[in-house]
C-alpha cells in the first residue's frame, strides 16, 4: 500500500520532485565548496577566508567602489553586446538570404573569427585612443563574431517545406522572410547570443585588465599591486555572479520566444 502511494505521488509531480532533488544537490555542493575553501584558508594556505572576502565586499559596497565598477563593466558589456548582436542578426540574415552577400562577407568573417578579439586590442587602442570606445569595440567584435555565424546557419537551415508552404499560401519573398525565416531562425539566433554574451563578458574583463580606469577588471588589476587578495576574490565572484545572472535572463527570454519548439 505504501509503495503504491509513493508511486502515485511521484507520478503526480515527477517534475517538481526531480527539480527539488536537483536544487538540494546544488545547495549541498555550494555549501561544501565554501566549507572546503574556508578549511583551506584556516589550514594556512594564502587564501582569504570567506568571512574576509564578505567583509571586503561589504566595505566596497559601502564606499561605492563596487557599484561604480559594476556599473562601468556592465555598461561596456551591454553596449558592446547589444550592438554586436544587432549587427550579427542583420549581417547573418543578409548572408543567409542573398548569395552575393554571403560571398562578400564570408571570407572576412571566417578570417576574423580565428583572431581572439583581445588580440585586436593593441591596434584598437592605437586607433581609437584610451576612452570607452576601444573597449566597447572589442566587446562588440566578440559578440558579433560569436552570433553572426549562428544566425546565418539559422537562415540557411530553415525547412524548405515551410518556405514552400508559405509560397503556396500566396506569400511573396518579403512575407516569407518576415513570417517564416525570421521566426524559424530565432532558436539559432538565441544560441548565438548566449555564446556571444559569454564571449563579450570574457573579453570585457580582459580588456579592463589591460586598459581601464574603472571596472571590475581594473579593480582586480590594481588590487594585485597591493597584494589585496580579498578584493580580487570579490571581483572574481562578482564577475561570475553577474555572468550567471545575465545568461539566465537571456535563457528565460529565449525560452519564452521559442516555447513553440517540439524538442523541449
Amino acid at each position: 500500500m505504501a509503495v503504491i502511494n509513493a508511486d502515485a505521488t511521484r507520478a503526480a509531480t515527477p517534475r517538481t520532485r526531480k527539480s527539488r532533488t536537483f536544487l538540494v544537490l546544488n545547495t549541498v555542493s555550494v555549501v561544501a565548496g565554501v566549507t572546503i575553501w574556508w578549511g583551506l584558508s584556516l589550514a594556512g594556505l594564502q587564501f582569504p577566508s570567506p568571512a574576509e572576502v564578505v567583509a571586503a565586499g561589504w566595505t566596497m559596497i559601502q564606499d561605492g567602489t563596487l557599484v561604480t565598477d559594476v556599473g562601468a563593466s556592465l555598461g561596456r558589456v551591454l553596449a558592446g553586446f547589444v550592438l554586436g548582436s544587432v549587427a550579427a542578426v542583420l549581417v547573418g540574415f543578409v548572408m543567409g538570404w542573398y548569395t552575393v552577400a554571403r560571398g562578400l562577407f564570408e571570407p572576412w568573417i571566417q578570417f576574423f573569427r580565428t583572431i581572439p578579439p583581445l588580440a585586436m586590442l593593441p591596434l584598437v587602442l592605437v586607433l581609437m585612443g584610451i576612452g570607452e570606445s576601444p573597449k566597447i569595440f572589442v566587446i562588440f567584435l566578440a559578440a558579433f563574431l560569436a552570433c553572426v555565424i549562428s544566425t546565418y546557419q539559422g537562415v540557411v537551415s530553415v525547412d524548405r517545406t515551410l518556405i514552400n508552404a508559405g509560397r503556396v499560401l500566396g506569400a511573396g519573398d518579403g512575407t516569407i522572410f518576415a513570417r517564416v525565416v525570421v521566426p524559424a531562425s530565432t532558436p539559432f539566433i538565441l544560441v548565438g547570443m548566449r555564446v556571444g554574451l559569454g564571449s563579450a563578458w570574457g573579453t570585457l574583463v580582459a580588456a579592463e585588465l589591460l586598459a581601464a580606469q574603472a571596472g571590475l577588471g581594473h579593480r582586480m588589476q590594481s588590487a594585485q599591486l597591493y597584494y589585496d587578495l580579498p578584493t580580487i576574490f570579490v571581483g572574481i565572484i562578482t564577475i561570475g555572479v553577474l555572468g550567471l545572472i545575465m545568461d539566465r535572463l537571456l535563457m528565460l527570454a529565449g525560452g519564452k520566444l521559442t516555447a513553440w519548439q517540439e524538442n523541449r
Partner: protein
Amino acid sequence: MSTPKISVRDVEKIFPVGNEEFVALGGVSLDIADNEFVTVVGPSGCGKSTLLNILAGLEKPTGGTALVDGKPVSGPGPERGVIFQQYALFPWLTVRENVEFGMRTAKVPGDERRRAEHFIRLVGLEQFADALPKTLSGGMKQRCAIARAYAVNPSILLMDEPFGALDALTRVRLQEQLLETWSKDRRTVMFITHDVDEAVFLANRVVVMGARPGRIVEVIDVDLSYPRDEDMRLSPEFGALRNRVWHSVYHQRQIKEPAQ
C-alpha cells in the same frame, strides 16, 4: 466538352545526377475534370510528387506544359492549395494563426478572417484553435493543414501523401473525414499516395504510375458511389478494384526488376 480543370500535356522532368540524367517524368499527359477526386499511386521514384510539385508551381517542367483552367502554371497560386506529407504547419503559430496565414497574405480584413473558424470547425479542431502544433497529434496536425489549405478557398487541392506518416487507424479515419469534408465542400483534388487501399477508397479515378522513366501506366475508373464507408471498403466490388490497382502497381515492378 468543356476545358479540363487540370491539363497536363507531355510533361517531362529531367534532373542531372552527376554526369547522367534522371528522368523523373518522361512525357506524362493527364486531364482532371472540375470537382473530380483523382488519386495517383505508384512505387517510389515514379515521379508522382514531382508531378504534384509542377502543378503546385514549386518546380518547373523541363518539357511539356501544365495547364490549370487553361492557363499555364507559372508559380504557386492561391487557387491551388497544397497539403504536404510533413504537415508543414508553422510551429510558432497556433492552429488559428496557421489557418489564417493564407488569408493574411491575401490581405483579407480581420472580420472576414472569421471564416477561419468555419474551416477549423469543418476539420473538428475548434477546441484546439489556440493550441500550438507541438501539442497536437499527427492526425490533428494534418487536419489543421487541410483547414489551412481550404481557408484560402482554392478550387484545387493538391495532396502529397498527406496521411503517409500516420498509423493505419488514424489514416482510415482521416480518409473518411476528408471525403466528408470534400462532399460538403467540393474541390478538384489530386491526391498522391503509395497506399492502394487509400487510392481506391478516395478516388473517382486512380492514376497508376511507373518508375524509370516516371510515366502513367494505367488510369482506372472507380465506379463506386459516394458517400463511401466501412461497408464499402469490405465489399467485393471494392476488393476487385483494389486487386486491379494492386496488380497494375505490382506487375510493372516485376517487369522492371530483372532489367536492373
